[in-house]
């Protein structure tokens, strides 16, 4: 393993460009395959490059047999992202726990008194309105969105942007009553039951959470359960 190649894979993924590290497990020869080119001392043939591109598209590492022995194709993906709307108290532990869990976190709040670096040391903050921030950040299949303000003029634009994206998780803080009122407003915007089914509200797994940190645990548990749904189902079946 060339340290440089590993570094290139990690940095490329962090910059939003997926990369596949292709390693012959007999010789140890390696190449890094990206969207349009490859580099390294393993000269992958066309079928191996094709397999690497397929692994990138599937977002799944693969072990393949070749005439030169087993080859491991390791996919380095851009990090999962969490967009937290509302720099409220709950957002503080949630941002820290989500970072530990592997998410690149952005806290969005146009109210500058809330989204301060004193309250969120080391966290990426956006003082834009959520619809502007999300137009820029472009949530995708590897993105979770959580709204925490209770304030329709802040939360609703974020939920609308999230529903129009492929975000794998959407959660909205608020009581059942708040949530019912929220869905009514979203219905007026043209959203349907299939859209509403994507919103977890009231947000979080019911663990009787009280403190902001406990509520953050319940939200992060629900995000994880959604992300790993295929695994937990197979475990129940087994």
């Amino acid at each position, binding site marked *: 393993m*060339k340290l440089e190649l*590993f570094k290139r894979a990690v940095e490329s993924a962090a910059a939003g460009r997926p990369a596949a590290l292709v390693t012959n*497990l*007999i010789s140890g020869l390696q190449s890094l395959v990206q969207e349009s080119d490859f580099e390294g001392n393993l000269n992958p043939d066309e079928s191996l490059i094709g397999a690497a591109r397929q692994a990138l598209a599937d977002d799944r590492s693969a*072990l393949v047999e070749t005439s030169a022995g087993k080859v491991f194709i390791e996919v380095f993906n851009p990090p999962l992202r969490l967009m937290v709307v509302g720099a409220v108290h709950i957002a503080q532990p949630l941002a820290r726990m989500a970072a530990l869990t592997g998410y690149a976190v952005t806290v969005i709040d146009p109210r500058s008194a809330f989204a301060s670096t004193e309250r969120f040391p080391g966290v990426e903050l956006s003082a834009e309105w959520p619809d502007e921030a999300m137009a820029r950040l472009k949530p995708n299949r590897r993105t979770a969105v959580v709204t925490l303000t209770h304030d329709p003029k802040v939360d609703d634009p974020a939920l609308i942007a999230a529903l129009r994206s492929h975000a794998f998780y959407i959660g909205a803080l608020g009581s059942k009553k708040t949530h019912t009122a929220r869905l009514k407003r979203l219905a007026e915007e043209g959203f349907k039951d299939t859209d509403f089914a994507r919103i977890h509200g009231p947000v979080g797994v019911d663990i009787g959470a009280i403190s902001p940190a406990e509520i953050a645990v319940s939200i992060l548990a629900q995000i994880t359960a959604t992300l790993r749904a295929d695994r937990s189902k197979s475990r129940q079946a087994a």
Partner: protein
Amino acid sequence: MATNTGDNGDILAQATQWRGQGKGVALATVVSTWGSSPRPVGAKLAVDDTGAFIGSVSGGCVEGAVIEEGLAAIKDGKPQLLDFGVTNEQAWDVGLACGGKIQVFVERVE
């Protein structure tokens, strides 16, 4: 916040630091799993030539053996593909309830 590069980023940073100090380093990567293996494909462990390590490939069951192979790879430069059947008996020995099988690739970091 610095860009979040996750576990791989932590392992890269440590391996880079060790190499910078002139230490030999080996990297172990889970390349396949069967059954209920504790760590997914791609999970990594880096070890330096003193046996200090970061990361994990199994959650504790086979780290000892992997570190031994890592030290050997640092010396001779030969990559190794290791098979581990994590039996319940072995798991109980180290106080873990693993089960399943994993394949781990060990290589020297140049």
